[in-house]
């Protein structure tokens, strides 16, 4: 009973949040004609390029397309350990 009320008031596992998140992703794919696989490949290429200059924390790179009304932005969050690779990259 308590659990029922907790769920009712807190609403963490409300299915509408799942719906909204899924819609967000699928609409970005529809609008850019970029599949989830292509996005993954893009992410790997980005990481490969950036690794030439910076040491990346493997645990956390995230590359997503975000939609804000009409415009779509590519948002990459790539945690850096340190910029030790810069000299090696030939600058």
């Amino acid at each position, binding site marked *: 009973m308590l659990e029922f009320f907790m769920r009712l008031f807190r609403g963490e596992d*409300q299915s509408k949040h799942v719906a909204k998140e899924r819609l967000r992703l699928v609409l970005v794919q529809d609008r850019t004609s970029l599949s989830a696989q292509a996005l993954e490949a893009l992410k790997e290429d980005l990481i490969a390029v950036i690794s030439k200059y910076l040491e990346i924390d493997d645990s956390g790179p995230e590359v997503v397309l975000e939609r804000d009304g009409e415009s779509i932005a590519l948002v990459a969050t790539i945690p850096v350990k340190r910029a030790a690779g810069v000299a090696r990259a030939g600058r």
Partner: protein
Amino acid sequence: MAGRVIVITSGKGGVGKTTTTANLGAGLAMLGRRVCLVDADIGLRNLDVVMGLENRIVYDLVEVVEGHARLRNALIKDKRLDGLFLLPAAQTREKDAVTPEQMKALCAQLAEEFDYVLVDSPAGIEHGFRNAIAGAHEAIIVTTPEVAAVRDADRITGLLEANELSNPKLIINRIRPQMVRRGDMLDIDDVIEILAIELLGVVPDDESIIVATNRGEPVVLGGHTKAAQAYRNIVRRIEGEEVPFMQIEEDGWMSRLRNLVGLGRKKVRGA
């Protein structure tokens, strides 16, 4: 001055395009406008039965376009409302029996005689959809608060814009306040945020619509149901009036309890 040609479309089937077209047409006629409803769903005509006019069809849209019937002879006059007419689709023809150019000419001809020409689009994005939008100046997109319908509405928005029908307006159909309150249905703000198009109105899921459709009477004619009120509000907005969005929250004991203990969630905006 020529009338407004508005296409009612959705992409996905079964979200209530035809019911919406019937009710907006009847609602506009109730305000004294001259309205022609055009069923552009060739081969799958439905608007006639939703309007209860199926027994009065003599000629159809394809026969008019092909020159086998005169437009004035094909138009069915609604006996309930002055100024409301239907141009039925052909039932035994293929969708490609009509071209977009022919639809454009037909809509232009109708717009000379009517204040509003409402074109009921078939589902899909193929030939029938292209025909339905060909002669339109404005577009109304109907969706329901479901993932598949919202996705298709977004796709349709893009296609409309590519065809110079920018700024389509949105009707969210079949919203269920109780499910919204539980968080098990996308609410109006969610849908608007995702689609980023202007809201024209919200129609609650209402059994009275099924009853009205059984009888072949647009629910808007029947008075005091929430759905009828919602359609009347939408019609006034189409006419350019600013009508506030009414609350479609029900006064159930749960919401009263929740308000009592101060846990009332955001009200369900609506209609």
